[in-house]
């Protein structure tokens, strides 16, 4: 039996009196691809942020790889993000004055030691072998997102948290990024992906649907 990598136990989050998450409870098994869906303001990003150690739950527990994220101190949270989480954002969030390879190396540097050869290899795996020294402004949206993916994977995280990673991409680039995610899934990575797209949602093993901060459904996709 595969162990649960993520356990969301009645997670609630309130911002200035507004309840963004309301007793959300689910589990994610290691190697699963979960799509988190729901309308804007339903709490998808808040949930991702709590699981990624960027926010703390107001109540409930977020346990990832046996660690109760909400109880960690600032330094432990930083270490947790560096070691266990790989983030991919809709807006790519690359450091604009660092080249593609340096953006990947930065994640290595925060984790342990920067290794340019390894960073270059990870970029080659996402099809950017010839773009190592390009600045983000010299790359297309799809290329930037692939750099972000390489950066998210470089430290071999336990969990990949992707917040609408194809939201800013054209169809061709969206397809390329989705293929990379499918490849990651096949190689055993655990992925939680926020999306509005039903098509992308159907690619996942299961869909978690949120509305007004509440978990409405967990739907298993038929493969």
């Amino acid at each position, binding site marked *: 039996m595969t162990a649960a990598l993520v356990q969301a136990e009645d997670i609630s989050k309130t911002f200035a009196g507004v309840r963004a998450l309301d007793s959300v409870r689910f589990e994610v098994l290691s190697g699963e691809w979960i799509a988190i869906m729901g309308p804007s303001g339903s709490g998808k990003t808040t949930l991702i*942020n709590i699981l990624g150690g960027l926010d703390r739950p107001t109540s409930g527990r977020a346990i990832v790889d046996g660690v109760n994220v909400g109880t960690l101190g600032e330094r432990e949270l930083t270490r947790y993000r560096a070691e266990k989480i790989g983030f991919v954002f809709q807006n790519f969030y690359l450091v604009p004055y660092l080249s593609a390879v340096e953006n990947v190396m930065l994640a290595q540097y*925060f984790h342990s030691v920067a290794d340019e050869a390894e960073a270059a290899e990870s970029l080659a795996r996402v099809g950017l072998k010839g773009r190592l020294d390009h600045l983000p402004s010299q790359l297309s949206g799809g290329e930037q997102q692939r750099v972000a993916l390489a950066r998210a994977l470089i430290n071999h995280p336990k969990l990949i948290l992707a917040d609408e990673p194809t939201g800013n991409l054209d169809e061709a680039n969206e397809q390329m990024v989705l293929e990379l995610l499918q490849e990651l899934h096949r190689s055993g990575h655990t992925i939680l992906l926020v999306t509005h797209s039903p098509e992308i949602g159907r690619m996942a093993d299961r869909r978690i649907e949120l509305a007004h901060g509440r978990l409405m459904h967990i739907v298993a996709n038929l493969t």
Partner: protein
Amino acid sequence: MFWRILWRLLYASRGRLALAVIAVASGAAVCAALLNLNLDATDKLTREFRVLGANVIISAAQDGDAAATIDAGTMQQIEQLRLPEIVAAAPYLYLSGEADAGANRTAVILAGTWLDEVARMNSWWKVEGNWVSARDSRSDCMIGEEAASRLGLIPGQNVKVVYAGREATLKVAGIVTAGSSEDSQIFIGLPLAQELAGLGERASLIQITARGSATEIEDVIRRLSSALPGVEVRPLRQLAQAEGRLLERIRGLLFGTVILILALSSLGVLAAMAGLALERRRDVGLMKAMGGPVRKIMRFFLAEAMAIGIAGGICGFIVGMALSEWIGERVFSVSITPRLIVLPATLALMVLVSLAGALPLRLLGRVRPSDILRGE
């Protein structure tokens, strides 16, 4: 990786950072100039002050006889001591005599001395005509401007000096303006004064111009006192204290200006860094989200601030050395030598200024990554 990212940071913000470097360099130039002036000019001004007349007096031991004289041979003993601090020394024999310029005759103080030394000890005197270069001249004299005025004398004319029924006629080589009692005296050669007085090789006192700090001069006095028993060696306190006060004021002014400049430079850096901090907010939030420890992230920005301080400090030092030479010549009329010790001092001050001015960047450590990722 650290240096690679630092270089990228510096290169990416080169325009804004150049402004900060200019702010630091401007401050560094003034600070380096003033620090160099403080080190070099005050030392040279001390020397300059030392040659503003005598600062040590040797006279007969005080035994109640105001007219007591000393053996002029004491001068030879002083010369044999070969004290390097002594710039000039001259024996003086003062006689209360009379001067006759034909139409005018007046009582006057005759100061018999080594006439060549008078010029060396009182180089700041204003002279109309010429100094007398022959130490024991029996034909020429110098006359104070007040005495010259009373006697109606101009350089080149003759004056008859009279003391105890003995007299000598001398040509006025120059009229001196000292702004003190010397203005009413007539300076004649020491042997002539001794002849007029009929005293033999005696002198009223010896005036010495010594250079060095107050402590060094105290040391000169101590060594002279032990080498010359039976005479009194004392400093001219008034001049030393006035000189000390003036130097203290100059030093205070320099340090006050340095502090003001440092504060203004900090504000200049602060203004440049405030804009930079806004630009960097997103990057810091992202780095923290990636698991970047605050210390590691802040190290980039503090190193950036230090680089500004070092770059500005070096540029400022070069300009400051030129500035100090200019100020030295124009304001203090002394030539200033660049002191290398000013470089590390300037760099240290400028790095501190830059770190103080980089306060907005340090506040970036408080950025919450979730706020940045939410677009706040």
